[in-house]
């Protein structure tokens, strides 16, 4: 078990480094560099040349990557090519702001969707199932920016309950940001919950028709106990991966939502950095995003092990040797892909 975790951690680090390299190369492939982007139509050849040498952009690409990697390993993410400020503290500030949306979103959407998903699964074919499924399908199909526009129209323009956009910068205190987080949280929660509801419903239905539940019911256990004690842990297994993927997906969704609400979070910072080709900032965000992605997946797998003894004590079978029919079933369901916005 500890060995497994170590192996996973090792591959996680490798994934992050690879992601940073790929992002670095992708930015090089984008048309226009930071100097051209900032100067725009004022980018006369002389102005471009002067600014490039000021920013040290005349060093070869790979040398710059190695320099950056070396700095990053020591925790120094460099300075922004645009503002000249250190990347680390600025990113931390934006990350804090994003967490302020992300944490309530995860708590609300995961709780809500597991409850609704299980209810829908248990009442399969009844009106509760139908209405939950319909609403979640709708929430899944309407893009976040549309939901955001509707909510702004209703609760900021129509009934002025919440601010439509955040006017404060990233340095705003949590108290200043607090009134502004609710609309973004609702938008993201709706999008996220829809997928988890669908998954939970499906796996609840699967589990409730399996033999051990029938056995438990025939044993005369109360239905609540059957559901809570026996069905739920099994039903949650495939859902875990979906939750993990969704949390990681939220990093993408947050870009769109933060932009609409002018929320000074990581998504907004990323949009700005990509637009300006501000390499050090993009790289730092890439590392943080990759780390979150990897961490979410690792956490999901570890939780799955905790919930499912079969995964903990599975004999370390060589590839191709001895098919394990039982646990194989759940990962097959969990590879639900969702499109990034």
């Amino acid at each position: 078990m500890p060995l497994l975790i170590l192996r996973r951690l090792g591959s996680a680090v490798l994934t992050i480094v690879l992601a940073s390299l790929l992002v670095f190369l992708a930015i090089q492939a984008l048309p226009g560099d930071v100097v051209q982007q900032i100067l725009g139509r004022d980018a006369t050849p002389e102005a471009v040349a002067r600014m490039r040498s000021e920013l040290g952009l005349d060093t070869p690409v790979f040398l710059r990557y190695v320099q950056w990697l070396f700095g990053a390993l020591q925790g120094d993410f460099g300075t922004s090519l645009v503002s000249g400020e250190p990347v680390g503290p600025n990113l931390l500030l934006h990350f804090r702001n994003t967490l302020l949306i992300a944490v309530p979103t995860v708590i609300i959407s995961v709780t809500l969707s597991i409850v609704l998903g299980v209810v829908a699964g248990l009442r399969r074919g009844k009106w509760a199932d139908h209405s939950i499924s319909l609403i979640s399908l709708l929430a899944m199909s309407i893009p976040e920016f549309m939901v955001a526009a509707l909510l702004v129209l209703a609760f900021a323009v129509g009934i002025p309950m919440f601010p439509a956009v955040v006017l404060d910068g990233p340095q705003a205190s949590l108290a200043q940001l607090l009134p502004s987080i609710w609309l973004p949280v609702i938008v993201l929660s709706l999008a996220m919950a829809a997928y988890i509801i669908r998954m939970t419903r499906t796996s609840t239905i699967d589990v409730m028709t399996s033999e051990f539940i029938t056995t438990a019911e025939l044993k005369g256990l109360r239905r609540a106990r059957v559901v809570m004690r026996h069905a739920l842990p099994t039903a949650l297994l495939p859902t875990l991966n979906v939750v993990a993927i969704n949390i990681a997906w939220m990093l993408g969704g947050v870009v769109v939502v933060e932009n609409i609400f002018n929320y000074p979070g990581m998504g907004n910072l990323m949009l700005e950095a990509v637009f300006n080709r501000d390499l050090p900032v993009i790289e730092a965000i890439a590392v943080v995003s990759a780390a979150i992605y990897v961490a979410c997946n690792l956490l999901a797998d570890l939780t799955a092990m905790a919930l499912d003894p079969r995964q903990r004590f599975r004999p370390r079978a060589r590839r191709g040797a001895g098919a394990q029919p039982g646990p194989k079933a759940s990962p097959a369901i969990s590879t639900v892909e969702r499109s990034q916005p």
Partner: protein
Amino acid sequence: MPISSSMGRRSVLVAGMTLGAGALIAGLSGCGSSNGVADIPLAAATGNAARGRRMRIARPAASAAETLDPASSLSAYEYLGAIYNRLVKLDQQGTTVPDLASEWSSTPDGKTWTFKLRRGVRFHDGRVLTAGDVVYTLGHILDPATGSPQAGVLAPILEPSGVTASDSHTVVFALTSPNAEFPSLLTAYQCYIIPAGSAAAIGRTGIGTGPFRLSSYTPAGRGSVEAFADHFAGPPALDGIDFYSVQDTSARVNALLAGQIDLISQTNLDFATARVVASSPVATVARAKDAQWYTIPMLATSKEFSDPLVRQAMKLAYNPKDIVATALQGNGSPGWDNPVPPGYADALDYTRPYDPEQARALLKQAGVEGLRMPIYTSSYDSVFTPLAVAYAEAVKQAGINLTVTSASSDSYYTEIWMKKPLSVSYWFTGRPVDQLLNQVFRSGSSYNESAWSNAAFDQLLVDARREMNDERRRGIYQDAQRLIIEDGADMTPMFGDRLVGLSRKVVNYSEFGFEFDYLKIGLS
């Protein structure tokens, strides 16, 4: 960077979003009101401003590299007019009028210019404005290390050593070559006067002589200015202005509709959004007339457009009035391929013929009958694609087949503009005629977006600068405009009104070219 603008710069990732949200809100609010969606108002509200009010302005910050140094190409444009003054400014007819300078004159050869400064003008830190500040400011603009866009205009005729103070309130400019239009070149928004010795700090302190003094400022963030009681033209109507940086266009509109801000600066609302804003109970739309100068540059160095016959055909083939009617929905004026805005005193009053048959004949003569090529556009500005589509549709009559090709907006000005043979583009109007013609049409200028080169035209510009008689000089500029219309490679289909979203409480809003009236604007 309002040499173009930063509006919609980031629309690449959110273009669809803005459209979707705009249409949605349009639809919903259309259902709500009984008379449907309102028309776009023609004039801004006027009236008495209440005392003691603060205005909230949302602006699209160019980048975190922005600075309050007016000379820089990265200046935070919206602050400049509030906190600084220039020696001279332009009026709506494109005529140079006094600001910090009360009068000016030149020697008969047009080489030496003397500017008298207004007396009793104070900077926000209490210092009195003197000729030394002007000398210092010009030195800062001309310093290559500043990298000022206006240095490209001034440096060919003026050396830093040529600017001297003959007494405490008189500045003498000794030019290296005659220039009858020299004062107009000092109207650029890079030429705001800063206190002597302040270059290193001005980017943060923003100390000027303007109607407002800076009280706080964060690049690409919030900032505030307060009324400056000692301003020479009297204190402004407002007590202060808070500037907020909101990057996304639809977010700026939402903030306006929700009553969080009073004005959206540097943003040309698309027509659907403008109608929504105009029908809102809290907000409305005002316009900066003819503020957007739309162009269709034909790259004169390309194989298609190196032939003057083809360029002529491309112009004869379309009627600018039709383009105004479709692409601008009537909110603008036809340009007839003359880049000088129709309201300018120096504008040539000439409507070139519209003759698609003649265009077809010219193309045949040039051996490119039924010309086929792409015309590039992007979502950089909301009118780009309507313009490209309307133009492509119009020239079909002359047998020209243009494929409207949309390119990514965030690299439009690095990858498409001045690189592809045919594209659409725009500038802000507000340049004095001499600078406009020299910057965008003279051979070899870095802003010459069509790479057009015409020796006779270049000579006219030189002649005009030598001609001290105002009437005769106007005649030369008009000859130059005629050359652009007949031989030029940069078409001007139209001038569009900039549709500005503002609160219904805003009174006395007035903006044209690079002039924004910060003194009179107020809240009722």
